[in-house]
């Protein structure tokens, strides 16, 4: 269209006028309220959401959660603000439970193997048939008097799940094992000896003013990270006086990154450091005679072997560093010591962690504000916190029994033995001698995909349960787990779909006419009976006039607790042991310091895409297995980020992607646990390497548990390069100069 000059001017005048006109009116207000297309017209009813309280099973310590449910589907998990352990907070792993619930690779019916083991060839069968196949096998053993040839292995489960599993195994006469890849038996044994507690005590980080930690990555993965993180936040900025935190560790973990001071010690010498702090405190007369006598057995002379001057060289720090820590620790108002993790994963683990926890006796903080808070026993008989796993040594003996043909039925629940047991245990090969492997797995993890019979269990958001906290809060707590949605595979009918693990055991015992001594036919009935016991106590958080309203109350609030039913205020110190030099296996030039992945932990969360995609706090890497190496060492060796390297320990090796950083000690490399699954669904199968597989059989001397931090490895580039999937540099780094600052610091004396 051709415009004349006159037409053009007319149009321009008109639009300018219109612009002025509209400007004067302003944009209609309703327009401004549009935020995204979510504002429904008034005649549309927005969905009604229900929030149900239950328990989270993503980590070692159950947290209270509330789940948002709309139209029968779980939409969001948040912390239960009533629940004493996490008080409304939750960590990164918690929310990913939803992806477990709606995982595309869940098993939707009982399966029986039709092809060779590991081929993935299965046929669906009915639950009736499946339970009959299990009970037939068990009854055959019963008939020949070989009940002990049945083995039930689970992850650490406590409270009602543990109760049913234990009763089932003991009534039948099966051997019962508990398996966890990163064993806690060292720490649990120390806690029992030093504090007299069956489960973990509470650490009052919030009210402490000097926190000395050894090895444990307690802000990220260790025992109860959400609770500890909550305390940490208050420890930093919740009081007028900001707490100081010193972390003694052989690796620069997420916890080390948040400490005011990271003291790098040689691997396996954390206990010597702790013992040396005790020695210095004792020699300076900072410790009462009673405690000194109890710790040393009456003669404190032997402690002088561990004086700062004597151990400094072996620990790899100066004597002044140790004395400085000892002085600060003893002169603080509320000192607190925590330890575990890699410090416990050495041949001297038990004596090391014992020295660490005994520092709390030195500080005299047991039962005190800012100290170690002890827990009472469970209010219900027979319900206990989840036990520690059996030791690696015991599992090694189990594999020998398997080879000798002494295991006929291996039942596995929540324990991925094929993945987690180091190759040196020979489990994979020896499993061929077990005629029947039964898995309760709801997903094809590495063990389930080798099973002959699969009895897929509910996801925890579909199941009943209770929890006695692994790490309590100083008073009685029982968490309640209820189904927040109907089972996802319900539409497959009564005879297919999934069933709760405990319900299957109860059903099997009914078929075998075995009396487990539990009240109730279903798992829910059993739990209700225990709730009745709680109701009968007539105290605690739920005030109800009838049992039914009490029952509704515990389900509504996610649990029962009694703030007045506290644990003991004192504990008798235990005699310390000398901390021997750590046994380090292998001859490579680097010490291997594996660590629990912040998202995948020991590998249990590898099937969940949110967890795979969660950047590691230190490396920001995702989806892969990487090896952290000091960047200067890497440069000297011509290794750059993404180089595929072979990490070899005592003849076994994995490949990983090199990830140089400035914080890795020059004599060590670090690899996260969690990847390298053969199976486990589309998001985990065949991804990365499994560092557990290459570990040598070094044991903690006192408990026989696996010393997973005690290997030397060599690192050899393969010549290949792969881009590391990491979050770093996904967005450009902020410019950093005198005008542009991203992280501003202020000095400590400001507070």
């Amino acid at each position, binding site marked *: 269209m051709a415009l004349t000059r006159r037409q053009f001017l007319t149009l321009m005048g008109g639009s300018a006028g219109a612009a002025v006109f509209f400007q004067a009116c302003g944009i209609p207000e309703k327009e*401004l*309220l549009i*935020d*995204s*297309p*979510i*504002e429904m017209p008034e005649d549309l009813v*927005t969905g009604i959401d229900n929030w149900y309280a239950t328990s989270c099973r993503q980590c070692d310590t159950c947290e209270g959660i509330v789940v948002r449910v709309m139209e029968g*589907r*779980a*939409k*969001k*998990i948040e912390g239960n*603000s009533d629940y004493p352990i996490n008080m409304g*907070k939750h*960590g*990164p792993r918690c*929310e*990913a439970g*939803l992806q477990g*619930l*709606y995982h*595309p690779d869940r098993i939707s019916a009982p399966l029986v193997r039709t092809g060779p083991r590991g081929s993935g060839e299965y046929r669906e069968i009915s639950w009736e048939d499946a339970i009959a196949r299990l009970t037939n096998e068990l009854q055959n053993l019963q008939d020949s008097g070989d009940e002990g040839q049945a083995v039930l292995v689970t992850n650490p489960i406590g409270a009602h799940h543990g109760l049913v599993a234990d009763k089932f195994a003991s009534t039948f006469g099966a051997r019962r094992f508990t398996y966890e890849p990163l064993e806690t038996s060292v720490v649990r044994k120390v806690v029992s000896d030093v504090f007299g507690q069956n489960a973990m005590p509470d650490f009052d980080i919030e009210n402490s003013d000097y926190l000395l930690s050894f090895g444990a990555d307690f*802000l*990220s993965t260790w025992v109860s*990270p959400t609770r500890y*993180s909550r305390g940490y936040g*208050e420890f*930093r*900025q919740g009081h007028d006086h900001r707490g100081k935190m010193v972390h003694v560790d052989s690796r*620069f973990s*997420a916890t080390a*990154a*948040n400490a005011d*001071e*990271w003291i790098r010690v040689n691997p396996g010498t954390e206990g010597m450091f702790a013992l040396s702090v005790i020695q210095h405190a004792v020699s300076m007369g900072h410790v009462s005679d009673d405690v000194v006598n109890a710790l040393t057995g009456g003669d404190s002379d032997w402690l002088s072997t561990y004086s700062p001057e004597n151990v400094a060289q072996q620990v790899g720090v100066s004597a002044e560093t140790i004395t400085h820590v000892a002085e600060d620790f003893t002169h603080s108002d509320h000192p607190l010591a925590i330890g575990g993790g890699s410090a416990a994963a050495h041949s001297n683990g038990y004596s090391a962690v014992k020295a660490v926890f005994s520092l709390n006796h030195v500080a005299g903080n047991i039962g005190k504000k800012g100290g170690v808070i002890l827990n009472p026993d469970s209010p219900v008989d027979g319900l206990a916190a989840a036990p520690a796993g059996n030791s690696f040594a015991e599992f090694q003996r189990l594999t020998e029994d398997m080879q000798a043909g002494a295991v006929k039925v291996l039942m596995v629940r929540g324990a991925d033995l094929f993945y987690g047991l180091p190759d040196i245990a020979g489990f994979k090969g020896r499993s061929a001698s077990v005629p029947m492997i039964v898995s309760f797995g709801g997903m094809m993890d590495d063990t389930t995909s080798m099973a002959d019979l699969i009895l897929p269990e509910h996801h925890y958001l579909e199941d009943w349960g209770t929890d006695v906290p692994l790490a309590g809060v100083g008073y009685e707590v029982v968490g309640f787990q209820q189904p927040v949605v109907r089972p996802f595979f319900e539409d497959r009918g009564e005879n297919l779909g999934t069933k709760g693990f405990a319900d299957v055991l109860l059903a099997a015992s009914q078929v075998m006419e075995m009396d487990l001594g539990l009240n109730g036919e279903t798992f829910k009935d059993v739990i209700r009976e225990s709730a009745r016991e709680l109701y009968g106590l007539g105290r605690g958080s739920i005030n109800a006039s009838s049992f039914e309203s009490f029952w509704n109350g515990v389900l509504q609030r996610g649990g029962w607790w009694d703030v007045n039913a506290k644990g003991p205020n004192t504990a008798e110190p235990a005699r310390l042991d000398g901390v021997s030099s750590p046994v380090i296996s292998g001859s490579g030039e680097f010490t291997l310091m594996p660590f629990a992945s*912040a998202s995948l932990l020991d590998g249990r969360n590898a099937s969940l895409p949110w967890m795979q*995609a969660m*950047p590691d706090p230190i490396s*920001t890497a*995702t*989806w892969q297995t990487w090896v952290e190496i000091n960047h200067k060492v890497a440069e000297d060796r011509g290794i750059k980020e993404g180089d595929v390297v072979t990490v070899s320990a005592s003849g076994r090796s994995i490949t990983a992607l090199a990830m140089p950083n*400035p*914080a890795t000690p020059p004599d060590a490399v670090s690899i996260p646990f969690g990847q390298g699954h053969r199976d486990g669904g589309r998001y985990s199968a065949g991804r990365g390497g499994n560092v557990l597989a290459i570990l040598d059989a070094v044991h903690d001397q006192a408990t026989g548990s696996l010393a997973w931090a005690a290997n030397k490895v060599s690192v050899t580039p393969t010549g290949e390069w792969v881009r590391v999937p990491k*979050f*770093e540099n*996904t*967005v450009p*780094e*902020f410019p950093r100069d005198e*005008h*542009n600052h*991203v*992280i*501003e*610091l*202020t*000095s*400590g004396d*400001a507070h």
Partner: protein
Amino acid sequence: MADSQDRKWGMVVDIDRCTGCNGCVIACQSENNIPNNLEEHFNQRRAIQWIRIERYWEGEYPNVKARFIPVMCQQCGNAPCEPVCPVYATYHNNEGLNVQVYNRCIGTRFCANGCPYHVRFFNFWEPEWPDSLKNQLNPDVTVRSRGIMEKCSFCVQRIRRSTREADRDGVQVEDGDRGISPACVNACPTTSLTFGDFNDETSQVSIMKEEAMSNRGKKDGRGYRLLDNLGTETNVIYLKKVDESAGAVHGH
């Protein structure tokens, strides 16, 4: 709490509390239907995280520090992303939010170029989930299609929900734990994040902001804004990390 017209939502981020755990990141992904970031998305530097944890290295072994800072849309009062949008897909609403209207967006990506905080993310692909995982999607939040820009909204759907429920019950909207809080704030185990109305003098964020900013430059004033010299007037206030060894105040 003031009327809707007078609200100004803001956040205070205490980086002395932050441990870099990524709890906020996962909470955000769950709440806001963010597509799964697959391995190739990271490799192409196209992963989407409305809130992210940045990690900065300082020093060399053994005197090395890693510092963490959560970064989300700063909800600028004077936002560089807004004037460049040719279709008003991004604009300022009257509650102080910098808002993205998905069905206006035509994907020019001018806003992402303009944003100095790099908190805008472009959907290079149609988002995909296996059918069963779609059951988790939040019905309150639109799934963004290919070619659309997206970013942190301070969980506007949660603000709307709380407002609606308060209107229905005839009560005032509360901020904090029991009332309005974005998913990241709700999750944060260390209480590093605090959310609320800066126009309400009694709200916790206002009190924190007042304390932090009034003493700026002085010893106990920890408040600062990211890239403050750009004049973006952000509605996210950061509180400095306290470092015993810092001696003097860094970064000024």
